[in-house]
């Protein structure tokens, strides 16, 4: 069978044994992302300091491997970043999945670039990110 470069080891591993799954004892922010089309669901718990800098992130994901791996890699990647930085990474990821070309600095997240040939699955990878950005925006509004 055609081994799919989308389902690389890192995706499968993160989906099977996520490193950042669960809740946080002291989380300042929570968010939920739902994809009504497929029922995927991500609950995020994050510590964000008064300067808007993200501390720890934990996720509870019920969804496909792409969504679960994306949530786990995201949790790892955004630690220590502020909203502006998160948005830049998000934009780079969006470019990667649209074009299939990973922009410089995307790092491990470039595993999702092959999604450009599976367009109906792009939203699976983006769901945790949209939830996170909504959460940060809401925080700023308050």
């Amino acid at each position: 069978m055609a081994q799919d470069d989308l389902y690389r080891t890192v995706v499968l591993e993160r989906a099977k044994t996520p490193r950042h799954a669960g809740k946080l004892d002291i989380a300042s922010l929570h968010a939920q992302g739902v994809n009504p089309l497929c029922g995927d669901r991500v609950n995020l718990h994050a510590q964000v300091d008064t300067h808007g800098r993200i501390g720890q992130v934990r996720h509870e994901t019920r969804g496909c491997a792409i969504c679960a791996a994306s949530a786990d890699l995201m949790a790892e990647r955004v630690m220590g970043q502020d909203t502006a930085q998160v948005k830049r990474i998000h934009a780079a990821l969006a470019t990667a999945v649209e074009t299939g070309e990973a922009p410089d600095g995307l790092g491990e997240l470039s595993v999702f670039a092959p999604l450009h040939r599976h367009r109906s699955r792009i939203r699976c990878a983006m769901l945790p990110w949209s939830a996170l950005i909504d959460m940060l925006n809401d925080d700023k509004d308050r």
Partner: protein
Amino acid sequence: MMDQMVTGKTDAGNSLRHVRADFPILSQKVHGKDLVFLDSAASAQKPRQVIDSMADTMRTQYANIHRGLYWMSERTTEAYEAVRDQVAAFLGAGAREEIVFTRNSTEAINLVAHSYGSLLRPGQVVLVSEMEHHANLVPWQMLRERMGIELRVTPVTDDGALDMDALGRNLSDGRVALVAITHMSNVLGTITDARAISDMAHAAGAKVLFDGSQLAVHRRVNVRELDADFYVVTGHKLYGPTGIGVLWARREILEEMPPFLGGGDMIASVSFERSTWAHVPHKFEAGTPAIIETIGLGAALSYIESIGFDRIGAHEDALTAHALKVLGQVSGLKVVGTAPQRGGVISFTMADVHPHDIATLLDRNGIAVRAGHHCAEPLMRRLGLSATARASFGIYTTPEEIDMLAATLEQIRGFFV
């Protein structure tokens, strides 16, 4: 896999192999692999007979119908109206006037919900089942909002059959005006006992509508033998074009129903003060209809009839039995829906692998299956699932394709454990 392949090659599932040549799309490649199309329940592929009939119509014989006094229009009108006769015969209808052309099943059900629904009174009940497609659910919810009717639900049993005892109880207070139930589930493959449902509905003073979207392509339908009051089908699942569906209803019911959409062709006369309606079925066909698509549907029905439901049924039964067997051997795979009466639509889950990942990984191997809630969210909730993968078969499906599916699923599963 080897002896399954052999089994496949020798069993009845093979008898329609020659029809594959009629479907040009089947020789396409997907991600460099031969297309294995196992999503016919969502929409069937089109034989060249349908493609050609539509193209020929546009090339040699097209004009707007019903009001043209010239040859092109007269001939197009005849071709269009001839399909009404054909559909009437296909469904075993009592008269051609009982055939109303719509865009699809969804519009057909909405037509009934709006028009027949406007004759219902608050407190009357529309009774559906737990395994309805949204198309046979949301229109009744919207009618509930408009008219204050009650929407009642008959459950399915654990194996995915309609709970006939519960149906009886649901009918017992005599308030049910309409039973609207699928003739074949697009998720479970369950075929319901339409005749028994009709009898129970009629005994309780209710009318009955069957959603034949899935069934009509697999089994011969005879609306009179089923003693139905309404029956809907959709062209694109019948190897026909998109944009064309059919509502059949008993003539006396259609005559009593007010029109749904207003416009040209559905009127007898129009003045600002008052308009009067054309006879059935034209009363329900406002505006320029899907002329080319209706002619294409006629070609699709001719194609189906040329094969015959005996052979189609035998082919699909054999395929389904074969599929249930080989899929049952895939580790971790669980078939969802095991009612005794069932057709070639098989939903399944696979431990540890999300249906979406199954679909994507199958696609990388050229195999098209559907994954999701299949427009049946309440059923998914009943089953405690958020999604299933679904393989569904058509006249062009071969046992080898099913074997490929099973073998690839086994490999995918290996990937994830």
